[in-house]
């Protein structure tokens, strides 16, 4: 081979293009995914003059191939010769931005946005902006939809005449005939506002915003709510009342629940964007209405925001607003007919206690917590329990403990194992907050009962829970309260319970320390090596391997080694296997 000719002749382009045209889609896809390899083999010039034109002309492929192509081209700048040639990538990406399939189009737009940054200001005007214009005035909605995502990336870097054109195109698309394009424009309205000069924001964007927010289709209107956040953030405070608020008020009372839902969902952002005065005068009543909305979806979305909304209220009137306006609504939500609403509320309501302080919490919130702790829906109760730490800081958990206990007990015995699992996970947290005495008195039996649950996942979680409790309460506590009970299960007639003993020992040995492990646990384990169930025996081998590092070498040599050697000659092959594994890991061979 004539090496001196360089890469360009290494591979004839025809061979490579054949790969990109292979009949088998999978092979074609593989080739496209390695397009950069092909481009490297061709060199920058032939990539520009031969590969890219080929790609531009043959965009009639499977969407999956097109998606890969759209993605590849976004990283092609160096392969076509750097920023000064980056505009060569525009033709194929332009075609990709017009295809039907949304994922392909979105990826093409993403790549276009990426390479727009690599264009010089001149190239941007000469090559990129005309492309945006062509897309914006395309026949089919797909190209116009794609154009919406490109305005904001080129606007800041072009001359004022071109800027005027871009604004005009954006205006046209906001009033497009098809709702698909209006939706795309509405979803980019906030982004576009951010790059616009303030004067144009007031003169252009506000009218577009108002129009989109009163579109005939609710799918367009709800997107305007999102834009509302950005627009309100950008405008000076004194303009908000006249330019934004009429539209926002209207959205909060829209006849479509989807729009109201969107307002509720974005409420904290809106609150920050419009500032404290408007919040006091407008958002508080609007929020009250959303909390009382007739559609459960909307109420749930609003309930989720209760804490954040209250937290961000202006400090001077926060308490008064919460007490007189928000709390009455919250009280009603506690007995809502919809469980999703109640559980959304339960996940944030505890956070109010830090805001309202001790006295108000005891007087007003505590009854609500207690009511929710007795709710028929376990998710509501779980949400309350999982947030106990907030209340603990303010009033101490004792206030709640009398109601807490029945709630915990009921959850602990729930028929659904996932509910039981969830409450187990909160046990260490509860134990820490309720203190060791309360725990011993009321909760210890529960924790032990879980060890013999008939679902393995619960037994496993219970084991892990014990370990965390020991870490919290210390080895001495373990020795007195749980170790005897755990070891007692070693004589249980049910082999699953006997195995639980072993699993507990695995988990507890480290936390309990060498003394307890050697003196109390090890004898039990060793005794179980003669169990008649093979599963128990090989778990003995596994346990010995696990607790070995905690034991001293004397115990290992004199007690563990003989047992493992015996197990290594067991009739059951699994027992043999695990015994041998333990011997080699503990280096007892």
């Amino acid at each position, binding site marked *: 081979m004539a*090496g001196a000719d360089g890469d360009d002749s290494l591979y004839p382009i025809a061979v490579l293009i054949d790969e990109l045209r292979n009949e088998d889609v999978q092979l074609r896809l593989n080739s496209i995914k390695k397009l950069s390899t092909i481009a490297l083999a061709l*060199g920058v010039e032939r990539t520009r003059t031969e590969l890219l034109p080929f790609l531009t002309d043959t965009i009639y492929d499977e969407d999956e191939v097109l998606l890969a192509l759209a993605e590849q081209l976004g990283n092609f700048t160096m392969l076509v010769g750097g920023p000064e040639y980056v505009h060569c990538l525009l033709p194929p990406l332009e075609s990709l931005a017009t295809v039907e399939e949304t994922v392909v189009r979105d990826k093409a737009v993403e790549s276009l946005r990426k390479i727009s940054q690599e264009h010089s200001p001149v190239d941007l005007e000469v090559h990129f902006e005309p492309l945006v214009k062509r897309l914006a005035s395309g026949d089919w909605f797909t190209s116009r939809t794609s154009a919406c995502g490109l305005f904001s990336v080129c606007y800041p870097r072009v001359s004022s005449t071109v800027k005027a054109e871009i604004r005009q195109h954006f205006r046209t698309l906001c009033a497009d005939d098809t709702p698909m394009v209006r939706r795309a424009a509405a979803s980019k309205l906030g982004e576009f506002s951010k790059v616009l000069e303030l004067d144009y924001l007031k003169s252009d964007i506000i009218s577009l915003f108002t129009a989109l927010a009163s579109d005939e289709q609710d799918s367009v209107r709800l997107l305007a709510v999102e834009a509302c956040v950005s627009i309100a953030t950008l405008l000076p405070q004194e303009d908000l009342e006249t330019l934004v608020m009429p539209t926002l008020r209207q959205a909060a009372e829209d006849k479509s629940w989807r729009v109201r839902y969107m307002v509720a969902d974005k409420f904290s952002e809106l609150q920050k964007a419009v500032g404290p005065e408007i919040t006091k005068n407008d958002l508080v009543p609007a929020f009250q209405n959303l909390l009382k909305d*007739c559609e459960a979806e909307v109420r749930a979305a609003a309930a989720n925001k209760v804490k954040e909304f209250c937290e961000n209220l202006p400090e001077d009137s926060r308490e008064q607003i919460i007490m007189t306006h928000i709390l009455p609504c919250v009280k009603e939500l506690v007995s809502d007919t919809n469980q999703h609403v109640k559980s959304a509320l339960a996940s944030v309501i505890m956070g109010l206690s830090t805001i309202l302080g001790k006295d108000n919490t005891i007087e007003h919130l505590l009854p609500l917590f207690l009511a929710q702790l007795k709710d028929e829906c376990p998710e509501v109760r779980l949400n309350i329990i999982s947030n106990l730490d907030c209340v603990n800081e303010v009033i101490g958990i004792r206030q709640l403990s009398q109601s807490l206990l029945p709630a915990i007990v009921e959850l602990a015995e729930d028929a659904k194992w996932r509910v039981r699992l969830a409450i187990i996970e909160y046990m260490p947290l509860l134990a820490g907050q309720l203190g060791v005495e309360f725990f011993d008195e009321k909760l210890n039996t529960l924790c032990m009962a879980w060890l013999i649950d008939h679902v393995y996942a619960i037994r496993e979680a219970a084991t892990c829970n014990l370990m965390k409790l020991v870490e919290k309460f210390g080895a001495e506590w373990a020795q007195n309260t749980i170790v005897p009970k755990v070891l007692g299960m070693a004589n249980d007639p049910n082999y699953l319970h006997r195995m639980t003993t072993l699993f507990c020992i695995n988990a507890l040995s480290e936390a309990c320390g060498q003394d307890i492990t050697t003196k109390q646990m090890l004898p039990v384990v060793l005794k179980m090596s003669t169990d008649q169930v093979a599963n128990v025996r090989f778990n003995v081998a596994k346990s010995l391997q696990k607790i070995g590092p905690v034991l001293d070498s004397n115990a290992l040599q004199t007690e563990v080694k003989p047992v493992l050697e015996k197990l290594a000659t067991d009739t059951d092959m699994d027992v043999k296997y695990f015994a041998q594994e333990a011997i080699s890991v503990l280096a007892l061979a």
Partner: protein
Amino acid sequence: METTKLPPSSPSSPTTSFSVPSAEKVDGFPRRSMRRARQRRSHSSSQFRYQSSQVELTPLPLLKDAPVAELHDLFCKKLQQCCVLFDFLDCVADLKGKEIKRAALNELVESVATSRGVLIEPLYPEAIKMISVNIFRTLPPSENPEFDPEEDEPTLEASWPHLQLVYEFFLRFLESPDFQPSMAKRYVDQKFVLQLLELFDSEDPREREYLKTILHRVYGKLLGLRAYIRKQINNIFLRFIYETEHFNGVAELLEILGSIINGFALPLKAEHKQFLVRVLIPLHTAKSLSIFHAQLAYCVVQFMEKDATVTEYIIRGLLKYWPKTCTQKEVMFLGEIEEILDVIEPSQFIRVQEPLFKQIAACISSPHFQVAERALYFWNNEYILSLIEENCQVILPLVFATLYRVSKEHWNQTIVSLIYNVLKTFMEMNSKLFDDLTASYKVEKQKELKRERERADLWRGLEEHQDRRMQMLTEAARNQRNLQERGERGDPPSPSSPQTAHSDQPEPKPSGASSSSGAGESAT
């Protein structure tokens, strides 16, 4: 059914998942059977909030007893009375009012259906207003977010006892011999139609059934709205395909379109062809295809029967969207292909046979026996068989290798015996070609293996090359950075010159790099 008195502050909050077994949200796997076991629930739309205060209804005299002079006036009053909405979730609320409205609606239906001369111009706005107030509402959120129309019971509209009569009235109104499109078009306008179309998303099949007939009548009688209706249906479909994948009334809308397509004038307008290619064909990609596939296939075949030249678009479109992983959909596609082949013109068949039979061969080799079986059934269809026979020279080489291989490999005995039949048919059709292909099968296999090896070699070479290049590029970048740093230190006051130097840099680099790579190549 929930009958609890609702709190006074929200006089009509919609039913909510009260009966959902508690903790189901926590248990991540609500079982299908359990979900289905839930009792049928009904929901109502969020419109009551906007009705300020309930009006007390008083019964009016019967229409049939009214003197002719007062008939229209009374009719109008009854229409106005029917504009009052009731809360049906609270089934004991205002029973008297509900009964009065029901009776009034019944009378209106009866009157429009049977007596002549009732529909005079002043009644049109009143009638349309009554209809709008009752039927146009924001549909409530679906109670079951993963609602599967094939598996789950739909949520029914609570206010159906009234709503049905309103729809019935609307239908009789449109069908009345007295109905004057020229008067109606002032009230049944674009906005009205748009709202009507949105209602097709209703989960209640009874409502969609009424809407279907009504929209069909509107399309038939109000010619000025036709193009608009088609365009809006397109928008609904496009949104369904590319944005939400959710719309309950696709089947109903397609059913209407089926008869609309039937009435298209020839030659087909560009707009209609575009609808076929850019809307109907992509509808095949929907996840829920099975719900509306029959109607969709009907529309597609209608198009072909109108104008045979669209055949190629259709077949190539279906091949483009051929299901990759969903065998259930693949069977549907094969069914549709057979429907198409049943009416295909032989001249059109020739244009698509190659890609089509490659796909059919792929289906025959599917490990899912229903897919393979469905494809092999094509050979039982006499018309298709005659097309295959005419083009045996082209088709047999396309499918032979697959048939030969699958006949030896397929796990399912039925498939194997079906394939033997197909092979036998081919043997009878053209024994010479069949023998040639059998003889060359092994050679072809070898060639294919060789091609695969060559491809692997090519890519190995390319990748090695890439690794070398990447190494050099990073080196070059490092050198350039060093140079630049040195330049900056030595010559700080020219900030513009590095930029031009920068953009010139990449050009000479590759050639320099490539010559060294070439040297490396010859050394090895």
